[in-house]
């Protein structure tokens, strides 16, 4: 009985800690604005990114040279996006408010990847400029 209680409470708190941890990573990227170039490349209007663009953005990020400092962030956010997808599907019938919250979180994840893409493009451009000047 005690073990079952500890198990349930721990799982609930684990989810809460993990959600907050993922949001703390996403929040740091939320402060950056997307450049015009990335919005053009991805086809984004304004500063909002559609949650369904997450997969495509991840593919584009993988094509860019790595700066090496966002791989862990991308993995954590990827897991979070996947979790929010499950929550959205599970809560669709029962709790519409939870569904819309999960959808906003997924959009936040997509925005995060768009910012990561933006930074990688800027990094590639700097790299190219450096190579050109070395010649």
């Amino acid at each position: 009985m005690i073990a079952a209680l500890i198990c349930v409470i721990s799982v609930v708190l684990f989810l809460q800690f993990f959600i907050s941890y993922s949001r703390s990573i996403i929040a740091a990227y939320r402060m950056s604005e997307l450049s015009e170039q990335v919005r053009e490349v991805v086809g984004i209007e304004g500063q909002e990114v559609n949650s369904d663009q997450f997969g495509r953005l991840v593919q584009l990020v993988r094509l860019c040279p790595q700066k090496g400092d966002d791989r862990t962030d991308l993995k954590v956010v990827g897991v979070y996006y996947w979790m929010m997808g499950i929550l959205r599907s599970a809560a669709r019938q029962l709790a519409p408010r939870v569904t819309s919250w999960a959808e906003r979180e997924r959009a936040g994840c997509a925005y995060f990847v768009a910012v990561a893409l933006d930074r990688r493009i800027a990094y590639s451009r700097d790299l190219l400029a450096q190579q050109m000047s070395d010649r």
Partner: protein
Amino acid sequence: MLGPLDYALVVFGLVAETYVVVCLCLSKSSLRYLSLSVYMLAVIGLTIAQDVALLRFGVSSQVYGYVYYYTDALLTISLFFVIMSFYHQVFQQMGVGKYVRWASVFLLSATALFSYLVVRRMPSHHLTNRFVVEMSQNLYFVGVVLTYLLWGAVVKLRETRTRLIQLVLALGIFFSADAAGYALRNLFPALEPSFLKWVPPMAGLFLPLAWAYTFTKISEDARLETARVALPRMAAHQHS
């Protein structure tokens, strides 16, 4: 018999723990995170002790069992000091450091008493599988509760230090994963060889990795609104 994955987890863990200690020693804020450095050094030392026992006596020996579970319990209790240092940082500006120290003494006494009662309740004082699983489950659960209370205080007091926020949340993930893992082992012992035996080493690897990430990427001056991080219900309490 241990496989390559077991050894890889141990090696990665040792590298990450050493990295955290080096990072803290080189940073200006080494004194602020003294208990964390001491804990990491203890983890490194006791992991090496566990490996020596493993190589000398084998994974199925009773000596290794004693060394593994008792050093793990000692590390969990020493992690409570790290939580207390986080409490101290959160409540520092309110000038309640004296109360935090008293609370730490009370907590340690309560944990010791609780562990003694658990040991006394067992019919045999030998190290049985059930006993160590129950003991670890309870110790980790105390950690979960303490970290959750700390997180509640962080949200309520609108703590904005990103480093502290991430350190606390990583600790919460570590404790809750371990507590849930041990509780599941207690409930379903058959799941242990296939799945649950990976929970403690995975959680043990996550904590130094997450802390290494925080000390590398998040500067001491970085600030973050807790309302952006906490779940909507908790954030609503913050504003009430």
